Each structure stands twice: as structure tokens, then as C-alpha cells.
């Protein structure tokens, strides 16, 4: 295992210490470094809380900031935060307008957020939940509620963040987050596994000329293993999965996210985007927003994912809004 770290058990907390040292606009609740919140809350605003395992930077905590989220429960590498931590974050970010939980559809997170929400409700804090479940590889059509949340949750963050910043009420923020989430489709491909520091060895083996289509972002192996093809062919295959679920006959506007899993050079993401844009163009879509880079990683996994959000007028405006977090800066045009 070749990594820059000290004791593997201290990895997450030392990372957090580094983040707090670098970015005074975020802080933690009480003594627990893993209860991650904005330093300056916005009075009266709906609180947006996410959370999940570490090892996915900038996901999850990286989206805490202006016009985005208010807090995140930070778990160990690829592990859920505890319900206690989520509850602490919830209490801290609540401004009386209620709190939206917005996180990926994973059983560990689900249970802990549910428990936190039950306890928060007892304390008079109203919570609602919207899940990221954009990974088309993880469940068939008709079973979308079972899908994993991967990089596409970024769009739900952006929509919810903008809606909350516009001081919309909790139900409305939840409605918009849910709409963004439901209209997002993601498909990923991995070329190499990743190593959880405390495990110290790769999570799966993959041949020198193989790729995994539909890998998870926790080092889970992919759904289909294939021989590595040229980038264009690979994108065509990936996009076919997305196009099978989204038609651009009436609603043409889309936002696209090309996400690197960790080790893949930015150059290659642009090669992927080039083909993605060609395919979308041919399908009749009009690309209104493009985000390319690392948005949801799996440590040092080599791989990429393509997410497409089908926009309507209200989503288009929310996605267009500027945002400013330590890890994500979007300057509105």
C-alpha cells in the first residue's frame, strides 16, 4: 500500500484536521471532528445535511458551503457516520426551518440517518429525506428505488443548495432535490481497484486489459467485466445505458457531469467528454451545463463516471446558480 499517511487509523481525523486548518469557513460541532458544519450558518434557512464514508473527496463534506450544504456526518473510509453524529450535525444546522437529509442510498447510511431523524423529530426538529440513487448499473428500470447513489448526487446538492439559499421552505427544497435526484442517471467504469488504508490491500483484482462497467464507489467490483475498449466505444456503451432511460424528444436540456474516480488524469476525462457531447448531440439533447473533474472519488481508483441530469426550467435555474465551498466553486455567468 503506497499512500501518504501515518497510522491508518488516524487517516480520517488527520485529513479532517488538515481541512479545518486550511478552510476556516468550515468547522466541527463540539469535540467531534466528524461532525462537519459551516462556520457561519444562514439564519432561517432550511438546513441541508449529508454524510457518508470518507475516501470520496470532495464528496461528501466538500459540498458544505455557500449555496450548497450546511453540514455533513463524516464516516470512516467507506463507512457511515453514526446516528449520534448525524443528530449532532442536525441540531447544529437547524435554524428553525427544518433539515433536509440528502445522501446516497446505502443501507448503513439509511439506518443511521433514519435513527438520527427519529431522534431529531423527538426534539422538535423537522427532517425530511431525499436519497441519491442515480447509478443505472445497480438496479433495473422499475427498481430505481434500489439504486446506489454515486456522483450524480452532486446535481441534487446543487439544486437543493440553490433552493434553500433562495429561502424556500423545507417541503419545496425537498421536492426540488427529489426532482433533481430522480432525473439524474449515472454510469461508471473502473480500470483499477482502490485500497482502504485500514485494509491495506486492493478491494478487487482486475486484469491488465480489463475494465469494470458499473463498479461501485466503495471498491465494490463492477457489475460487468469486459475487455478495455477505445474510449469512444466505451462511452457509446455507457451512454446507451443512459439513453435507454432518458429521451430528449421533448425535454432537450441536460446538465452533464464527467467525474474522475481518483487516479484518472483530467486529460482523459476530456476525451470522454468529447464523445459524450457527440452522443448527446446526436440524441437531440442540448447541453446547458458541464462539470468535469473529480466530484465523487474512490480513493485512488482509476475510472470515470458519466452523469446526465435532464433539466426543466426550474432545475436549469437552480443548477445555474453560483456556489462556493472549500472544494467546489461555481461562478454564475
Amino acid at each position: 500500500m503506497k499512500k501518504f499517511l501515518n497510522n491508518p487509523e488516524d487517516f480520517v481525523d488527520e485529513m479532517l484536521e488538515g481541512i479545518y486548518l486550511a478552510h476556516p469557513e468550515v468547522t466541527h460541532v463540539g469535540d467531534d471532528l466528524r461532525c462537519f458544519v459551516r462556520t457561519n450558518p444562514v439564519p432561517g434557512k432550511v438546513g441541508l445535511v449529508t454524510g457518508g464514508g470518507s475516501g470520496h473527496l470532495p464528496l461528501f463534506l466538500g459540498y458544505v458551503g455557500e449555496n450548497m450544504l450546511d453540514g455533513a456526518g463524516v464516516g470512516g473510509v467507506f463507512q457511515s457516520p453514526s446516528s449520534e453524529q448525524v443528530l449532532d450535525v442536525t441540531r447544529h444546522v437547524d435554524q428553525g426551518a427544518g433539515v433536509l437529509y440528502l445522501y446516497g442510498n446505502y443501507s448503513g447510511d439509511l439506518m443511521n440517518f433514519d435513527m438520527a431523524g427519529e431522534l431529531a423529530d423527538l426534539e422538535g426538529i423537522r427532517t425530511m429525506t431525499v436519497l441519491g440513487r442515480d447509478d443505472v448499473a445497480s438496479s433495473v428500470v422499475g427498481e430505481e428505488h434500489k439504486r446506489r447513489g454515486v456522483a450524480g448526487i452532486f446535481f441534487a446538492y446543487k439544486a437543493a443548495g440553490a433552493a434553500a439559499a433562495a429561502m424556500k421552505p423545507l417541503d419545496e427544497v425537498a421536492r426540488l432535490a427529489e426532482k433533481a435526484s430522480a432525473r439524474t442517471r449515472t454510469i461508471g467504469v473502473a480500470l483499477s481497484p482502490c485500497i482502504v488504508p485500514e485494509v491495506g490491500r486492493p478491494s478487487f483484482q482486475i486484469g491488465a486489459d480489463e475494465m469494470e462497467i458499473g463498479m461501485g464507489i466503495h471498491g465494490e467490483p463492477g457489475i460487468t467485466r469486459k475487455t478495455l475498449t477505445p474510449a469512444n466505444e466505451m462511452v457509446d456503451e455507457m451512454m446507451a445505458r443512459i439513453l435507454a432511460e432518458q429521451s430528449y424528444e421533448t425535454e432537450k436540456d441536460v446538465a452533464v457531469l464527467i467525474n474522475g474516480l481518483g487516479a484518472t488524469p483530467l486529460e482523459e476525462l476530456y476525451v470522454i467528454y468529447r464523445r459524450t457531447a457527440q452522443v448527446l448531440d446526436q440524441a437531440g439533447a442540448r447541453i446547458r451545463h458541464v462539470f468535469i473533474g473529480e466530484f465523487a472519488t474512490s480513493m485512488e481508483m482509476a475510472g470515470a463516471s458519466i452523469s446526465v441530469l435532464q433539466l426543466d426550467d426550474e432545475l436549469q435555474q437552480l443548477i445555474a446558480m453560483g456556489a462556493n465551498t472549500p472544494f467546489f466553486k461555481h461562478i454564475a455567468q
Partner: protein
Amino acid sequence: MDTLTSHDIPQLFARLSKVFADQKEALITLDGQVGDSDLGLTMAKGFAAADKAVSELGDAPIEAQLKAAGAAIARAAPSTMGTLMATGFLRGSASAKDCDDLRTEQMALFWRAFRDGVAQRGRAQVGDKTVLDVLDPIAMSVEADAKAGTGLSTAMDNAHAVAVDALERTRDLVAQHGKAAAFQEKTRGIQDAGSTVAVILIQTMADFVSHGAARPVGT
């Protein structure tokens, strides 16, 4: 032993902590097949924390011991199985309210509460290829033995035996929950990782009841 008292519980958790530390690599590998390889880490951490919490309690009733164990696991290992094990112990703790010791009858209540807590929290059904597929037969077996008036040691051995069978049968199921669910048909033939944890748990308890703390731990 035909009963577990509050004097035994700390030793039982010490044993569990040791067993899950030993099984760490095996569980990592098992969870890696159609999951994220963390099960060994979380179980080792969770039961180590439970051990510590229980041993630090000093003299305390069983209910408090089990509660401390559950709360410690919830904090130390909030993964799927960590949270479910925590829920199980917390619910089991409530079922042991005012018990001075656990005989077969109380043990049946404990496992029923454990299973029901897990089912409720995880929203899984028996047959969904989860830990529930082993917890349910365990609970039913101990319940039957309680009705039949079987001693604790035998009841635990019986439960262990049905758990081992149930674990084997998880191979025939298709995962409906957790990270494995994405793999659908590919999970057929693979032994469920969480169910393996349940077998280790009941085996260690059965062993402990039969042989006390003296017997060396092994699998």
C-alpha cells in the same frame, strides 16, 4: 453453564472481541466479493468497543451491560452490520430488563428482540439474503427450546447448528439489500457476509456457555 449472569457478560464480550479480531481478514475477504471489504474492520472495531464499554461498567445489571455494548458498537462501527448489531443488542437489552441472569427462556426473548430490531431497522424480509436469514432461525430455535424446557447450553448448541445450516442456505438466495443487491443473480452461490457474522456470534456464545471463558477461541 445453564445460565449467564452479569459476571459472565464482560467475559463473553472479551471473547467476542477476540474472535472478531481473529476473523478480521476472513470477513474482509468475504465482504469483498460483492461488497466493500469493510466487514472485518467494522466487526473487529465494534466488538472491541463493546468489550471496552462493558468492562468499564463495573458492577451493573445485564440490561445495562447489553445496552452499553449496543451503544458502543453504534458509535464505533456505524456500517450496516455495525448498526444492525448495535440495534440487536439495544433491543435485546430492553428484553433483559430486570433479569438477573439469562436462562433459555430469557435468551429466547433476547434473540427475538434482537431479530425483530434488526428486521425493523433494516426493513429486510427473511429470504432477502441478509443477516436476518440466520437471526430468524436462531430466534426460532431458542424459542422452541425454551418452550421445551431445554437447558441453556443445549439450546445454544442447537441454535448454533441451525445457524450453520441457515448460513449455508444463504448461498441459494439473491441479495436484495446492501451493497450486494446491485449484483443480483451474481450473488447466488455466495455465502452472505452478514449472516456469517451472525453465525460467529452464536457460535461464540454457545461455546462460551458450554465451556466458560477457559476454552481457547477458534473457528
